[in-house]
């Protein structure tokens, strides 16, 4: 065996004009979460426990699109999803359509460990969460001012589904009034690359 190793991500599809301040903020969160994982691995924790632990930390920080700070639906609500897989026995757990569960990855873990199923969604997943006593919060906990602004821009810019966050005014190289005009020449999904921000 080659020893432990860990790798994490906070989303793909980054605005090339992302301000340095935002880049440093994201790197700081990644570094902190990596250190949490490293400490757990050094103490002998199992891979599946470390994966859950680290993703919980990433979910809790609104810098990335999961948990608090999640992307919004067209109706302005949050519907989160998560999964976990333990390669040891190919055990899996997955959840979708969550609106009140603070840490979706931990509910996925409970689906894996405490249910006879692999995947629960929407009201069934929420019911399971309550039966398991996991921490729940009001849907508004997940909705940040930044995401409300991003949804507004997404709706104004185009009716298509956005893969990545649309940057707010003066944050990521675009503004509300010029979402589709600041074209650096590159396009993604038929839209100027300049309108895309971190997922």
């Amino acid at each position, binding site marked *: *065996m*080659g*020893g*432990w*190793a*860990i*790798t*994490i*991500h*906070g*989303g*793909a*599809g*980054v605005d090339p004009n992302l301000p340095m301040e935002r880049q440093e903020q994201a790197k700081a969160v*990644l*570094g902190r*979460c*990596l250190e949490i*994982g490293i400490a757990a*691995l050094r103490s002998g924790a199992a*891979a599946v426990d*470390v*994966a859950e632990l*680290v*993703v919980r930390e990433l979910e809790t920080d609104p810098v*990335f*699109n*999961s948990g608090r700070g*999640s*992307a*919004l*639906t*067209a109706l302005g*609500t949050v*519907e*989160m*999803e*998560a*999964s976990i*897989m*333990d*390669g*040891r026995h*190919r055990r899996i757990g997955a959840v*979708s359509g969550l609106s009140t569960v603070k840490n*979706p*990855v931990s509910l*996925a*873990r409970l689906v894996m460990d405490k249910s006879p199923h*692999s995947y629960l*969604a*929407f009201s069934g997943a929420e019911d399971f969460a309550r039966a398991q006593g996991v921490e729940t919060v009001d849907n508004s906990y997940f909705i940040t001012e930044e995401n409300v602004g991003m949804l507004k821009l997404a*709706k104004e810019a185009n009716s298509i*589904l*956005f*893969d990545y966050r649309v940057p707010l005014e003066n944050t990521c190289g675009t503004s509300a009034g010029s979402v589709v005009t600041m074209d650096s020449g590159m396009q*993604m999904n038929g839209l100027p*690359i300049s309108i*895309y921000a971190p*997922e």
Partner: protein
Amino acid sequence: TVGCAVVDSQGWCAAATSTGGLMNKMTGRIGDSPLIGAGTYACNLCAVSCTGEGEAIIRGTLARDVAALMEYKGLGLQEAVDYVINERLDEGKAGLIAVSNRGEVAYGFNTIGMFRGSATENGFMEVGIWE
């Protein structure tokens, strides 16, 4: 989307992925993150977590394909990741992170950037965004 792939000191691999999905998505939309084999996969050889446009990741069954290339074709971790990114994924759509049971880390993406970080027992540690 956020994700983590880990191999522990016993050589066991695990992966987890969590997301809010797409901004302005339709209610009821399911992405790749909860779909085992698409956005997340782990077995005795490797663990993988994906991020990007869920529909493209689902079409490419990216996570499972990395494992399958290692299992059936005997590719190394980075080779398998590169193959999947270059041959199975639509241009500009997504990225992924992976570990092997041998303590290797790998990543690949064809978007402008991907927020990522890696560390190994031998002291390697890296946090990055761009290529």
